[in-house]
């Protein structure tokens, strides 16, 4: 079988259910592929891994992938299983935030490590500085959890619809005590979880062939996961080596994830791409990318895979 190494963006969880399902259900095997799934973590940058030859294909967010491309590692999007963004800002009502206009002077928790771009471009749209001055907002680098909100160290924190939001709820805060702003609704959403490979490798027909099979099987996995969320959550749980995930949480996450992947057959929607690029190029004082990227995506793979 052909060996394919996939580097995930984060730890094993339902966010990546499609790949685990494809592997577990033998979809990859059917295509003659032997896929190794490497979980990510807070200190793993998928672009670095792929540049160093540690993976054939990676899951990454588009802002980070485009930034990497500009830095000389030519990543190419070959498929986009996630149609919409799950990122949002969740605020405590009691902190006095009701609309984006109330952000001024507040402390906001943000994920960095390449995930801050959508936030920064939103803030620059709002005309808010992020340097902690009185006219702007104070930004705090959020850890991997929702403590800053619960400890009231921040008025709002970044959450994903499928994960952190529910942790806030689990911590005993009622949905009606919260105000949420989805990036999707604010028009600053960027594309999340896409599949990326190195451009020069795509010149190799054998590799291309391999990717076609891979994408086809993965999408099959995704669609299966959407249809059978509970089973998919169970498969993810099986593959979690930390033994720290709970069934309840993964099932719920799978349900939310299914909403995000629902609109996609795997092919990248060029409108979404354009919107992402536009919001990244605005990026305020420190734009993520300085010039329109070229060749940052290809439909060749999905076209072949979805035939």
């Amino acid at each position, binding site marked *: 079988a052909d060996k394919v190494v996939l580097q995930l963006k984060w730890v094993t969880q339902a966010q990546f259910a499609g790949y685990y399902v494809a592997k577990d259900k033998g979809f990859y095997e059917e295509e003659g592929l032997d896929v190794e799934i490497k979980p990510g973590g807070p200190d793993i940058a998928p672009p670095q*891994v792929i*540049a160093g030859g*540690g993976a054939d294909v990676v899951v990454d967010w588009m802002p980070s992938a485009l930034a990497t491309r500009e830095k000389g590692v030519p990543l190419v999007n070959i498929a986009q299983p996630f149609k919409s963004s799950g990122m949002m800002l969740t605020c405590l009502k009691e902190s006095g935030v009701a609309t984006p206009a109330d952000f001024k002077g507040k402390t906001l928790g943000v994920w960095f490590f390449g995930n801050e771009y959508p936030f920064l471009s939103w803030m620059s749209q709002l005309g808010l500085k992020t340097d902690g001055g009185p006219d702007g907002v104070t930004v705090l680098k959020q850890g991997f959890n929702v403590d800053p909100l*619960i*400890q009231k160290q921040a008025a709002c924190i970044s959450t994903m619809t499928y994960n952190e939001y529910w942790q806030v709820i689990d911590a*005993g805060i009622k949905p009606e005590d919260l105000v949420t702003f989805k990036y999707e609704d604010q028009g600053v959403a960027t594309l999340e979880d896409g599949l990326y490979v190195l451009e020069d490798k795509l010149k190799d027909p054998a590799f291309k062939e391999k990717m076609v099979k891979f994408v086809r099987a993965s999408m099959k996995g995704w669609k299966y996961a959407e249809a059978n969320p509970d089973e998919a959550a169970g498969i993810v749980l099986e593959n979690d080596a930390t033994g*720290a995930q709970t069934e309840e949480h993964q099932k719920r996450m799978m349900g939310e994830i299914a909403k995000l992947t629902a609109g996609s057959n795997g092919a990248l929607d060029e409108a979404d791409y354009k919107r992402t690029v536009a919001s990244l190029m605005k990026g305020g004082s420190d734009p993520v990318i300085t010039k329109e990227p070229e060749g940052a995506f290809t439909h060749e793979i999905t076209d072949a895979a979805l035939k």
Partner: protein
Amino acid sequence: MEKPSFLRDRIMPVGTILLALLVIWYIAVIFLNAPFERDTAARAGTPISFSEIVPKTMFQQRPVLPAPHQVVAEIWDTTVNKPITSKRSLVYHAWITLSATLLGFGIGTLLGILLAVGIVHNRAMDRSLMPWVIASQTIPILAIAPMIIVVLNAVGIAGLLPKALISTYLSFFPIVVGMVKGLRSPEQIQLDLMHTYYASPSQTFWKLRWPASMPYLFTSLKVAIAIALVGAIVGELPTGAVSGLGARLLAGSYYGQTVQIWSALFMAAALAATLVIIVGFAHTAVLRRMGVKP
């Protein structure tokens, strides 16, 4: 002279201190966890009295500080109640971390001693290497660990070794510092004696410098093994954090499971204490063999 008694000399003091710590801990639990209960009550609009808060602080789902009995229950549950091969067993994760720790510590000790020997015996190394060994330690390992792992992966090394190397990176330094001092600690007259015999550097090393450095070596080993454990845990982050105590800590922190964090922390601390105590026993045994006046 009274005969030493195990109960009086060991259990009693440790027990007393432990008890004191427990009391402090419980008090801290009440005060750190109370604000959350108050907030919940305030949001619900029901006033709550202090005496109602206290029992609640003991059993929170996501306490700021879990109560000791919660941690004990969790540890008990994840060690005794789970088969040790299970991914949910803390023993399984502890073993993963321990194996990386021991490998890293072993390599680190060897490397540290070799470097110290080089530095003590070769002036060029002393002058040129030491500043860079120091500089190497100021490089935050987490920053370059991913690169190391990626590079190692590219040449086909994966699994235990990359983690062990990170723990090596942290643990060799205390050994170098301690051993450079220890190997230089023989008195002038002891060195002169070797000089009169025209002893070769290796003879001087084995018969004088090495035995003279023992107190320094063992002190360094204690520090190094503790740091090696920290290194192994830290090293689990960039290696994918799939298993091991570090992965448990991270997952616990990621999902806000304070009780799980604390039980992993306790496991790590207990592991470290055990390792340090073992090194301590080795130290005493070696000293006794070296005829040190009791």
